[in-house]
């Protein structure tokens, strides 16, 4: 319990002191995870949309697989990306191992199934509701999908946020492919892992508290944007 009190104190000390080391780590965490989510959205939304409207043999199996991949263990993804990016691996010449880009790649792989599966479900429901009406507008399948994406934007935002939550909180993948290098690839979670291994539990927990606050802030921001957009639709 003493640790708990101490860690809240640490968290406040870190935040109030605007510790430049902390800012660097927070900024990198946000940069890596947000980029991963944006790329995962660019990849995952079309996959989800395709699954929502297309009917082909094996579709059920694909849906089950992608849904199951939402639970991909980060360490496994980290390992696979490491083996690919290692100088001994297929993509070694790109020299990406131990860079933020490697971390973005790993997190993107983790987040794509989440966005694809959640967006697929959302869009499938919406399609059931809207298909006939959009057909009556004479829209082709691409134009229908575009409309569905726009109509489902708030639910899809939730899918993106779920992906972001997964990305910002995972440590297993980024610590392997990023290497937790100070000033280069150290993010919130790997810093927490490091401080824990140093036995600085209060500091580790303090960083954890900041991570949670950060996640809350990002979600609150999206919530406010959504509320503002909805208000403007009613106005």
């Amino acid at each position, binding site marked *: 319990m003493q640790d708990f009190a101490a860690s809240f104190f640490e968290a406040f000390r870190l935040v109030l002191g605007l510790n430049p080391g902390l800012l660097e780590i927070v900024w*990198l965490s*946000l*940069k*890596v995870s*947000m*980029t991963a989510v*944006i*790329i995962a959205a660019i990849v995952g939304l079309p996959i989800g949309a395709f699954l929502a409207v297309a009917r082909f043999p094996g579709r059920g199996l694909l849906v089950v697989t992608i849904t199951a991949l939402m639970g991909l263990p980060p360490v496994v993804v980290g390992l696979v990306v490491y083996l690919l990016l*290692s*100088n*001994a*691996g297929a993509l*070694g010449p790109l*020299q990406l*191992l*131990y*860079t*933020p*880009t490697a971390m*973005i790649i790993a997190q993107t792989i983790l987040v794509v199934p989440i966005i694809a599966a959640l967006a697929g479900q959302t869009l499938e429901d919406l399609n059931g509701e809207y298909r006939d009406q959009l057909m009556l507008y004479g829209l082709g399948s691409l134009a229908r999908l575009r409309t569905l994406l726009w109509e489902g934007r708030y639910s899809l935002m939730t899918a993106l946020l779920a992906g972001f939550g997964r990305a910002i909180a995972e440590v297993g993948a980024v610590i392997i492919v990023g*290497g*937790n*290098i*100070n*000033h*280069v690839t150290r993010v919130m979670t790997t810093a927490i892992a*490091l401080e*824990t*291994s*140093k*036995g*600085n*539990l*209060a*500091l580790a927990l303090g960083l954890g508290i900041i991570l949670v606050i950060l996640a809350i802030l990002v979600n609150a921001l999206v919530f406010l*944007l959504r509320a*503002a*957009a909805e208000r*403007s*639709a009613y*106005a």
Partner: protein
Amino acid sequence: MKKTIASLVTGAALFLAAASFVPAYAGEFILLQSTTSTQNSGLYDHLLPIFEEKTGIEVRVVAVGTGQAIKNAGNCDGDLLLVHAKSAEDVFVAEGSGKQRRDMMYNDFVLVGPSSDPAAIKGLADINAALKQIAAAKAPFASRGDDSGTHKKEISLWKKAGVETVAHSGKWYRETGSGMGATLNAAVGMEAYVLTDRATWISFGNRAGHEILVEGDPDLFNQYGVVTIDPDHCPNIKSAAADRFVDWLLGPEGQAAIADYRLDGQQLFFPNAENGDS
């Protein structure tokens, strides 16, 4: 209104995406595959700024267990290797991955345990006797179990004491499969004995009721070595910059800097590079 919000979000997103592809440092750097104790004890925070100031070469540290560090370096994912498992390092060189291995510094391992000391080993000067007593008492013992330098050392000590730990794994002998810090946290949590290098112990923040019980046995000697990578094996590595760092580490300046590093007034590492080649 809706449009402005949408374009604002898109703009911010694109900015973030672009920003993250700009590398944090553009200058020259080398990648050091390292054991964890040198990082966790804060030694690098003391040494690297001095070297970087002098040469402009940034040293990026990937701190993992000795076993993994050697494997990563063998995959050419590092320009230099700094670990503490001499026999494994020699194999690394003999196999052709490493170019040259040299002694850099030493400290020692200590046996740490709860102050209740159920195996009554406190103050023993003989690690061999202490381990035998722990086995006889079936007192909990936390092992790294991760193929690290410390783990290798621990295995050799049990072997010497004639204790077959495999038979007791999961009972009083508990393998955490984790780094030194995580294993220390576990040992504190389950009131277990544990072998650790002194530097990690001194800098460890969560000692609770644990203390050093056995130390000073010559068998507990802990040698750190630095191994350069063979450019024939890894053509892409930055040999020249790595060699400069090694020369500095093993030279008078680096050795003095190692000796200077203190935590709580205690010296953590003792330089012992031979001046010349080993």
